[in-house]
């Protein structure tokens, strides 16, 4: 008997499944006959490529975790120009990395459908900013679509491929965290056969973006923009419902909140609702028709007033003077995500109807509650390396950090992150801090992040002779986003044929003269490596190499070790373990330091840190 087919590859038309929004997008790509899929993982987009990873070999398309979003977009663009339907997925800040390619790929256009999934993160659940990437559609002149439900995340993906192919332009499908991570019922459609091979047809006057060619390509893009405007005017995703005099415009996840609010408030006969799903270019004629039928408009959109400003501009050009409100008068906040209650209350107050929202309980006698911040896991090798570096460099050195689990080192008592900007910025910002101050600088970057955007910064540091230490925290995986492989990972156990790169070789190849590779769980050696880096005049690199314990468990490479305990007769309560390591397996009980043996993974770092040798492995009875 063969292996059961992946559930998302079924041919059965009309099959209903409860899918994560990101799985619905993956299914949409499969129904659209995708031939090439690329990505750099990032919350909230990660489950799309992770789903592809579980089924691409069986489905017969090409998939890769690319080095970064720019590369991912270029790979997908190359495929779509060669006539193969492609998808590229990324989180919103990944679009910044990809944007150089995006702007000119829009000029070149594509020959087969290409859909770029852009996942915004209002409220910054797992991001360094909450930028509104609807502006990228405006900047690149590319069409943008915004789904509202799990079903639409699938359907719109399929539709976006068709739009892309008609216009010969990449289409951006924009989601937000709440959509990526909702689960809803999805009814499956027909699967188009997968075509994973095309051919590149030479046409330098279309594909070689030198000034003379690009002047012409920009003209073509302007024409395609007009065509996309026509498609937007006719799109089933831009629809007006109701005939009331109260106008509401909305998009994306907010559409759900608006629908529920209108029903809850019982005002559906008074409202005309305009939902913009094909949201760039905005359908001007439809908007004019809408504006002419209502007495006033409330625009319900998260983050920036993008639709609000454009609708106001359309109204102005047509001499329509009705009030158009949203962010302008602070009815809606410009920061963070919306929720159903906020939308209901604002609609009720704007249209002056009684608010039916239930009152939250009033609780006066709840004591101050202790926080539960996310934390580095018990036995995390990052903690061990932070200990070694801090022991040598002390609290006054400057510690630029980067994007990954290790950013959690910012929390006390570790306090090992002084500046975090974006992927790779630990290296570049260290160059600047080292050049502009006399302070000691030790930067931290993860393995996946190093490959993603750390290498050019390190080349800069070597070439311009900056003086600092870069610690590459190599835990063998892209840990934070869910253990995806990167160029330094051996993917053979996953049944994937890739070439594994050595971080040490890359670093030496760039020309770093002082390079040490250490296992951070060997505390003395790690401290010695930190000291040697401090003594070295110039740029030095420490590769801190130890598998992420969660990943090690997942790939069945976790060593079988005994948990530790505190021998209370030896412990003198100096609390070095708690104050310098703060491992979540340790706790204080009536002043006694204890180890939770269920959480302890036996990394033995605390035992090496304890000055009284009071931390010992548990004896396990057979």
């Amino acid at each position, binding site marked *: 008997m063969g292996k059961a087919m992946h559930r998302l590859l079924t041919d059965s038309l009309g099959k*209903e*499944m*409860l899918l994560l929004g990101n799985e619905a997008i993956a299914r949409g790509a499969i129904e659209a006959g995708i031939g090439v899929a690329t990505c750099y993982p990032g*919350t*909230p987009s*990660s*489950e799309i490529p992770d789903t592809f990873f579980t089924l691409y070999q069986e489905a017969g398309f090409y998939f890769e975790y690319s080095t970064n979003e720019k590369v991912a977009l270029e790979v997908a663009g190359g495929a779509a120009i060669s006539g193969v339907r492609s998808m590229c997925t990324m989180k919103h800040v990944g679009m910044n990395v990809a944007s150089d390619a995006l702007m000119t790929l829009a000029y070149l256009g594509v020959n087969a459908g290409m859909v770029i999934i852009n996942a915004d993160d209002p409220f910054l*659940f*797992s991001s360094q900013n909450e930028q509104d990437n609807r502006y990228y559609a405006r900047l690149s002149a590319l069409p943008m679509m915004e789904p*509202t*439900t*799990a079903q639409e995340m699938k359907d719109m993906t399929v539709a976006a491929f068709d739009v892309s192919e008609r216009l010969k332009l990449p289409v951006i499908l924009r989601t937000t*965290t*709440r959509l990526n*991570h*909702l*689960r*809803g*019922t999805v009814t499956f459609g027909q699967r188009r056969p997968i075509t994973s091979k095309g051919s590149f047809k030479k046409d330098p006057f279309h594909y070689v973006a030198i000034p003379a060619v690009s002047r012409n390509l920009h003209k073509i893009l302007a024409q395609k923009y007009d065509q996309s405007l026509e498609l937007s005017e006719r799109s089933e995703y831009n629809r007006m419902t109701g005939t009331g005099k109260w106008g509401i415009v909305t998009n994306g*996840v907010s559409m*759900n*909140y608006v*629908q*529920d609010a209108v*029903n809850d408030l019982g005002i559906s006969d008074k409202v005309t609702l305009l939902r913009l799903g094909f949201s760039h270019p905005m359908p001007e004629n439809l908007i004019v028709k809408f504006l002419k039928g209502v007495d006033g408009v409330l625009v319900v959109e998260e983050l920036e007033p993008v639709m609000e400003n454009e609708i106001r501009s359309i109204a102005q050009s047509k001499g329509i003077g009705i009030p158009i409100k949203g962010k302008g008068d602070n009815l809606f906040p410009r920061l963070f995500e919306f*929720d*159903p*209650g906020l939308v209901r209350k604002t609609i009720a107050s704007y249209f002056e109807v009684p608010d039916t*929202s*239930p*009152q*939250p*309980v*009033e*609780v006066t*006698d*709840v*004591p*101050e*509650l*202790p*926080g*539960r*911040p*996310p*934390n*580095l*896991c018990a036995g995390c090798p990052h903690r061990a390396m932070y200990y070694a570096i801090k022991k040598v460099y002390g609290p006054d050195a400057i510690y630029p950090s980067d994007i990954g*689990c290790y950013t*959690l080192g910012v929390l006390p*008592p570790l306090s090992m992150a002084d500046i975090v900007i974006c992927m790779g910025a630990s290296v570049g910002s260290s160059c600047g801090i080292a050049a502009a101050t006399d302070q000691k600088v030790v930067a931290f970057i993860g393995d996946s992040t190093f490959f993603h955007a750390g290498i050019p910064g390190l080349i800069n540091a070597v070439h311009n002779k900056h003086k600092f230490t870069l610690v590459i925290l190599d835990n063998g995986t892209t840990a*934070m*986003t*869910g253990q995806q492989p990167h160029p330094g990972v051996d993917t053979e156990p996953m049944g994937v044929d890739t070439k594994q790169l050595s971080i040490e070789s890359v670093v030496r190849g760039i020309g770093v003269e002082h390079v040490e590779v250490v296992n951070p769980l060997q505390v003395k050696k790690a401290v010695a490596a930190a000291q040697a880096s401090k003594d070295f005049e110039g740029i030095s690199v420490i590769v801190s190499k130890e598998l992420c314990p969660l990943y090690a468990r997942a790939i069945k490479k976790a060593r079988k070790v005994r948990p530790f305990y505190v021998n209370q007769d030896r412990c003198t309560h100096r609390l070095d373990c*708690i104050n310098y390591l*703060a491992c*979540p397996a*340790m*706790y*204080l009980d009536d002043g006694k330091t204890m180890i939770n043996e269920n959480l302890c993974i036996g990394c033995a770092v605390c035992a090496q840190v304890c000055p009284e040798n009071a931390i010992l492995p548990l004896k396990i009875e057979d």
Partner: protein
Amino acid sequence: METKRIVFVGVGGQGNLLATRLLGEACLAAGIPAVVSEIHGMAQRGGIVESALVMGDATSPIVSEGEADILVGFEPLETLRALNKCNQDTVIIVNVHPLPPFTVSIGQGVYPDVDKALETIRNAVSSLIALDGDELAAKAGNPLSLNMVMLGALIGSKSIPLDGDVLKDTISKTTKQAFLDSNLKAFDFGIAAAHSPLGPAKSGIKS
């Protein structure tokens, strides 16, 4: 169909995302419209995990302050923290077994007294169902079956229009054979516990 908004709160590793998802699958099997929301990523590293399931005609995947019909709390401190999701008619189902956060373990905060916390909750809402979910899960033969206990208690509370057998069927179809018995047992213990919950000041937890 009447809308029911259910909020689940717990701590990373307690399995409340799986519980929410199984409830969603059961709704699909029973023909009840439902939408689930989850949070993934950075928040999962030992932090608070909140999920929600909205059943009925509403389409919003999340639940605002004061709007939960049911709050399923896998941990007492996190249940207390999520009280702002509740109104006086909310049904609260709480596992009384505390998991002190790391801040408390290293002396940077005080874990609230569990019995007092239960009293606070009892005074705030019309219905509180308290149970020692960890004990019941252990009794069922698998400490990780806490989420099944809590699903059972949700069914036992009779606060949602879903047939317990449908949910049981969903659990059976998705659980590995090795854990099936203990999961189903845990689910039944949860139903029974909802029928005879712990009374005031009887959590048996010393703080």
